[in-house]
């Protein structure tokens, strides 16, 4: 019944859209990652329980407002609600919330962290990428044929262009050049701050090919809103071809021509010759 009503209202979208709650019409961007469903699930469980508890509070309030409204002949009870029975009931409510909401959410979240988000993949299969955001662009780096970062054969694509193969775990290590940025890919439900002086890590895996937006989620200056990158998920073959196209023809520092473009207002002295870091092995 509830579903039919929802469906009917959604069908009337063009009429209701502008006047009703946005919730009916807005969903998170399509999840194309291996583990994003875990985040959607914990959000959905929270949706459910908080709707129930909020509903109880509001229904009780409305019921009391009607039933116990001041009117001639009606008198309030003289009751401090401090009897043992009342205090026990209050405690019971506190514990009920703790066990029905907190422990469930915590169990789900800790399980997901252990099984997915903090369980970094290892092995040959893993694609490693270093990310260095700057005001106001994303720099990416791939290790090249020798499999090591900070060597001459590192592959550096154009700014704001990141490619990964579908179906393989991608591990990212990230540190910014100037101020704090945050690497955010809505379609993958991932976000990781990049803080100067720290190398942070995260991982994800794509289920579909396509092009997805990368946004900066931490205020980084006046062009923060334009700090947009693209994540292209390729088939394995396309990805390998793309990597080949990046192979350096000579050792010029052509890649750095983009540095200090007209958006940049930072007082930085320009790019470092060597922006990366040797890969930090994670235990």
């Amino acid at each position, binding site marked *: 019944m509830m579903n039919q009503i929802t469906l009917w209202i959604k069908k009337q979208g063009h009429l209701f859209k502008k006047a009703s709650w946005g919730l009916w019409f807005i969903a998170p961007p399509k999840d194309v990652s291996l583990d994003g469903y875990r985040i959607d699930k914990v959000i959905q469980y929270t949706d459910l329980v908080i709707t129930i508890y909020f509903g109880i509070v509001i229904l009780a309030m409305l019921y009391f407002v009607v039933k116990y409204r001041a009117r001639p002949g009606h008198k309030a009870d003289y009751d401090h609600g401090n009897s043992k029975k009342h205090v026990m009931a209050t405690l019971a409510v506190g514990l009920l919330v*703790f066990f029905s909401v907190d422990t469930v959410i915590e169990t789900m979240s800790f399980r997901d962290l252990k099984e997915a988000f903090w369980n970094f993949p290892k092995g040959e299969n893993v694609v490693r990428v270093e990310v260095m955001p700057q*005001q106001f662009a994303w720099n990416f780096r791939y290790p090249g044929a020798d499999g090591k970062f900070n060597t001459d054969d590192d592959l550096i694509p154009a700014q704001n262009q990141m490619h990964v193969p579908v179906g393989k775990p991608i591990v990212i290590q990230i540190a910014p050049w100037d101020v704090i940025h945050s690497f955010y890919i809505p379609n993958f439900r991932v976000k990781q701050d990049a803080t100067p002086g720290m190398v942070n890590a995260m991982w994800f895996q794509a289920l579909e090919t396509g092009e997805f937006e990368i*946004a900066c989620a931490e205020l980084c200056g006046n062009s923060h809103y334009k700090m947009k990158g693209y994540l292209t998920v390729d088939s394995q073959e396309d990805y390998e071809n793309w990597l080949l196209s990046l192979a350096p023809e000579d050792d010029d520092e052509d890649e750095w021509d983009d540095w200090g473009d007209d958006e940049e207002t930072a007082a930085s002295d320009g790019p470092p010759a060597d922006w990366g870091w040797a890969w930090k092995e994670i235990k």
Partner: protein
Amino acid sequence: MSEHHEQSFWSKYIFSLDHKVIGKQFLWLGLFFVLFGGFQALLMRWQLAYPEQPVPWWLLGDILFSGTGGIIDPDKYNALFTMHGTIMIFWAITPLLIGAFGNFVIPLQIGARDMAFPKLNMISFWTMVLASLVLLASYLLPDGTAAGGWTSYPPLSSPVGGIAGEGQTLWTLALTLAGTSSMMGAINYIITVVRLRAPGMTYFKMPLTVWGLWLTSILNAIFVPVIAAGLILLLMDRTIGTQFFISGGLATVDGGDPLLYQHVFWIFGHPEVYILILPAWGIVSDLLSVFSRKPAFGYKVTAIAMTTVASLSMLVWGHHMYTTGMSPLLGKSFMFLTLLISIPSAMFFFNWLGTLWKGSIKFDTPMLFAMSVMWVFGIGGLTGLYNATITADIYLHDTMFVVGHFHYTMAASVLFGSFAAIYFWFPKMFERKMNPFLGKLHFWVSFIPLNYVFFNMMVLGYGGHHRRIYDPSNYDFIKPMMWLNEYITWFAIALGLAQLIFVYNFIHSMIKGEKAEANPWGAATLEWTLEAPIPHGNFETVPTIYNGPHEYSNPKVKDRDWISQSEPISS
């Protein structure tokens, strides 16, 4: 301490030592800044709904942005949200609830002649005025005011962060001064409550309003010095070339750490949320009892629950930093501690419902606002669960979801709590009544748009819309949501216009309102026993306290349904 001699204009109204006058001074300051900060929100909303279109004349677009043809540029936009946040938290809500009502209500409700340190109280207000002047001066700088967000994370807020001009320096200085004012107030309130309670006024006979304000002051006294220290370090980074918070490519020496600032900021910043909300909880708990004509349900449990929340608030700051790459062990501990807050919160929500249960509920304006706090804080508190959850927060952190959530808790709950307080104590402050019809109208035309605005901000964030972006239409995944941005803006404008009703009612009632009797609400707390005008020194003789603060509908009291705390109940 009781001074009944003639006073000059200056010592009576300007550099007054009377807590009631200082309370009103804070009230005016807070009301000015709530309108000023709110107006900036509307400008910001305009840009979000209609990116890079000229701000219309009725929002003063051609005056404020004359250089760019009425269009807000990205630097100005960043300044708008920075100052909106800063002003609403430190210059609007803090002076309203803590400065105005803390000052006005605490001594009257505990039966004291004044604050423990009246001169410190006066200095606290004038330090706040100085802070306000520094803050307002920053708008006049050629490069404009601060633009690093209300959190002002370095290195962005440091001299090498790329924000032009010295607005950020004045911002840091103004905030340090405002913090100093808060500290002076906090010390004063704590000592006043501890030392100056009237005979018989035990801790568990204090009104819950005083409990809330007292707990707030304790948090303020502990944590404002922490942020002040952080701000002074930031000020040194900005002015004398230190690099406490600069690291990475922009640093010229080793050892700076931007993450340190985030810890210092949030060790203060999370208690700050409770610093703002605790007085509102206390006021709501008392008002529900007054207007239900029934003792507050589980008074002691509510007081203890509020104390528990205040204590837990010291241990949860890390939930603002889940995405910074903190140690997994720390992250899990912070999540567990944060979720624990739901236990005491559920308990006093239950008690609020218990107070209404079997009451005789009257729907005066203060009651409407008090009950609406149950609604808005219900939503605000419950949606905090998403942000407390590490995995959900990975997706929702730094999105409009967070913006909607904290506006429900801080803006909606605290502002509606303040409105409840203003409508409730107005007759005692100004000896006149506010117009009840305009009051109720103000409530409904605020409540409905407010919910549309903040609920839909959460919806936008759920759709992935990140925050602090000048032009959201720059992203393909946000484009389908832009219609909602437009509608939020129009509802926000409606919310802003609704406040004009309040301004009119407030000023008109103050001058021409109906004269109020001493106890128009039939309330049991001490301030209502005093006849207007209350002299400097409040009580001719300090009263002795016999009853709790919520003696309503006591069957032993024959002719009325309340009895004051200072009247013995004859058996």
